[in-house]
């Protein structure tokens, strides 16, 4: 057991942290947000230069061979800066599908494009009725001459409005809530029959609703097993949850720093409010939540590439539970300790509050993951 980052990891961390510190101030972010797609093309190009966009892909495929630890380093820094770019959508989600399910030809065609910043992807895993159940898929893909025809709706597709292509789950067999019969298909943004309705999300990012009305794709659009994609989808979702946990830790860290700064400077009753014991202990409770979350994000990162899907699921769900609860607790205290000013768009803290509240709702909230963990008999089991 070794908690020390390697030299490469340290270097990665330093460069991402510096990038965010230098280019993701409050006003920068507001500017990026107003741009097309709701993020910064320039930053995206910088990520490509730094090698972040190819980070988790195998070197043989044109990537840098990073693992969950490297992804977590990036995501934590991005959390600290409330980064807007579609890194999760392109690299972690869609990239994860490619890593685990695409064939060599697909990887050769797509990974270098992603790594170079020329291709942005999204992943349509949810549908209007599915809530957090990844297997709840009504969208259907029928085999037709030369490929597939896909019809259905995909909801809450993160950065689905700006993506060059979207990978969607679609049912090739079985009924709506069957675990078998689900395939993955790459749909180009300009495919006839695809309608995208983009919108901002509560936390200032973007998502889209997709309607696929008899969209035709070629045989090469199928990624992996046409009826057996669910294990890959679940694996990628778990990896993404681990990444979100790291992002949340970055947010929490910054929220604590901002709040501590406020406590040390805001004057009321002739003294800084941080001199009041009750507020001091609240700040301690926030700190405890941060450190417990940091521990669980590390744990999720360590287990996210575990080959045993149940062990992986337990660890990742446990981490998401911790993160979701800490998001409530830290968010509540951070706003409360700021008072009214924390409720305004003019202060940074509220933006973090909104982001961490929404992080809880991505890929399963506390209730969902607690139920999943409980169904797997929890973390403490009989000793061998």
């Amino acid at each position, binding site marked *: 057991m070794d908690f020390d980052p390697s030299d490469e990891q340290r270097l990665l961390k330093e460069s991402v942290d510096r990038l965010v510190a230098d280019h993701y101030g409050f006003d920068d972010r507001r500017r990026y947000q107003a741009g097309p797609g709701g993020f910064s093309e320039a930053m995206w190009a910088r990520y490509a230069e730094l090698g972040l966009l190819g980070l988790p892909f195998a070197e043989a495929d044109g990537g840098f061979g990073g693992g969950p630890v490297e992804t977590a380093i990036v995501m934590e820094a991005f959390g600290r800066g409330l980064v807007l770019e579609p890194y999760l959508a392109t690299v972690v989600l869609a990239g994860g599908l490619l890593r685990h399910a695409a064939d060599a030809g697909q990887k050769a065609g797509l990974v270098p494009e992603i790594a170079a910043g020329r291709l942005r992807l999204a992943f349509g895993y*949810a549908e*209007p*009725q599915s*809530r*957090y*159940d990844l297997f709840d898929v009504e969208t259907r893909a029928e085999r037709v001459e030369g490929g597939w025809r896909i019809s259905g709706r995909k*909801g*809450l597709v993160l950065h689905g409005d700006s993506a060059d292509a979207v990978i969607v789950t679609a049912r090739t067999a079985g009924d709506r*809530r069957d675990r078998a019969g689900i395939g993955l298909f790459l749909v180009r943004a300009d495919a006839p029959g695809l309608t995208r*309705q983009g*919108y*901002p*999300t*509560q936390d*200032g990012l973007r*998502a889209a*609703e997709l309607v696929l009305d008899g969209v035709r794709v070629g045989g090469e659009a199928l990624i992996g097993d046409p009826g057996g994609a669910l294990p890959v989808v679940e694996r990628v979702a778990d990896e993404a949850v681990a990444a979100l946990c790291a992002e949340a830790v970055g947010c929490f860290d910054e929220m604590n720093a901002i709040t501590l700064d406020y406590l040390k400077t805001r*004057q*009321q*009753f*002739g003294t800084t*409010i941080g001199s*009041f014991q*009750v*507020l001091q202990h609240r700040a301690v409770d926030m700190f405890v939540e941060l450190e417990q979350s940091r521990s669980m994000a590390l744990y999720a990162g360590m287990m996210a590439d575990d080959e045993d899907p149940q062990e992986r699921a337990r660890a990742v769900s446990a981490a998401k539970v911790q993160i979701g609860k800490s998001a*409530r607790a830290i968010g*509540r205290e951070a*706003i*409360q300790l700021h*008072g*009214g000013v*924390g*409720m*305004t*768009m*003019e202060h940074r803290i*509220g*933006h973090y*509050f*909104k982001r961490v*509240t*929404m992080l809880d*709702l*991505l890929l399963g*909230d506390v*209730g*969902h993951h607690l*139920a999943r963990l409980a169904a797997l008999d929890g973390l403490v089991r009989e000793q061998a």
Partner: protein
Amino acid sequence: MDLRFTDDELAFRDEVRAFCRTALPAGIRDKLVAGGSPSKDDMVRWTRILADRGWAVPHWPVEHGGTGWSPIKQYIFTEELAQTPAPAPLAFGVNMVGPVIYTFGSEAQKRRFLPRIVRLDDWWCQGFSEPGAGSDLASLRTRAVRDGEFYVVNGQKTWTTLAQHADWIFCLVRTDPAAKKQAGISFLLIDMRSPGITVRPIQTIDGGHEVNEVFLDEVRVPVENRVGEENRGWDYAKFLLGNERVTIARVGVSKERIRRIKALAAQQSVGGVRLLDRQDFREKLAAVEVELKALEMTQLRVLANEAKRETGKQDPASSILKIKGSEIQQATSELLLEVVGPYALPYQPREELDGRNEPPIGPDWASTIAPSYFNLRKVSIYGGSNEIQRSIIAKAILGL
């Protein structure tokens, strides 16, 4: 001791309920059911409907338009409004400055202002907080300097709710800079059309525009618009803040929200089961209902004792109403977030939705859930934060 409503009280409740259901314009009700806020026009329209029925200012003295109802009946009225749901009367006039005027104001002030509050001819807002005077309200720095028959007011107020609609603002201002904190403050009524007043909107994290900054730059206020004595304003402010207990717990609002949670949870399927049928969700909800019932009984205890107390002396239990009331409101908003699930994510401001033809993203009730969760953070901050409330209880009741 008989803790049930009397037959008379029950009949009264039914009368109010029936009135609200028929008299409230459907459009206003629908907006509130969907979690939205009433517009200025909605408020004026509804207030005048109530005024025509004689119910716009139930708790005021009868001579000024009040009803003479017992505290319990006033409570029933307020709760029925909330559960309709109908807009509550605009607090700044009806619950805040109105009672200050009829208790401490001059006869001229009463004649001039009270009837216009009753019919919402004047929209009032509150000028208490300042950027440097939040929890520590008495450290406020807005100055009023006497110049003949006028005060000249300079300073800045903040968190001024709905100032964008306001005709008048009641302000705490410092008239004696040499006196100790609370001692040099006066209570002024200021026309919002006065030269030198600027209102700047504050956008809040729910995307709404509810609060504002109000800048006062060489604003001239006639001395006749000072309520009561000079430098006694802190007393009137304390009186005003102490009057909140009838409504601060928001029991009716929370009841209405729990009904909404149940209705929506019955439509949501989670893991293949109706959310409302999941044991864990049912118990979580029931736990909040228990807290709310306890709060309601505490509120009724406070009200039942109201008549027996000296004016201005608070029932110890009343201090609980703010703390628990705000906690329960926030808890219901968390439950709603759990009910809506991932479709809380899209940001769709009400105004945009109302103005377009496309259907909303996700269920049509989903768009207000997250903003409401964000917005309700305020209830443990405003009106004296819950930390301030606890310190008050510790000192005033527990003697610590």
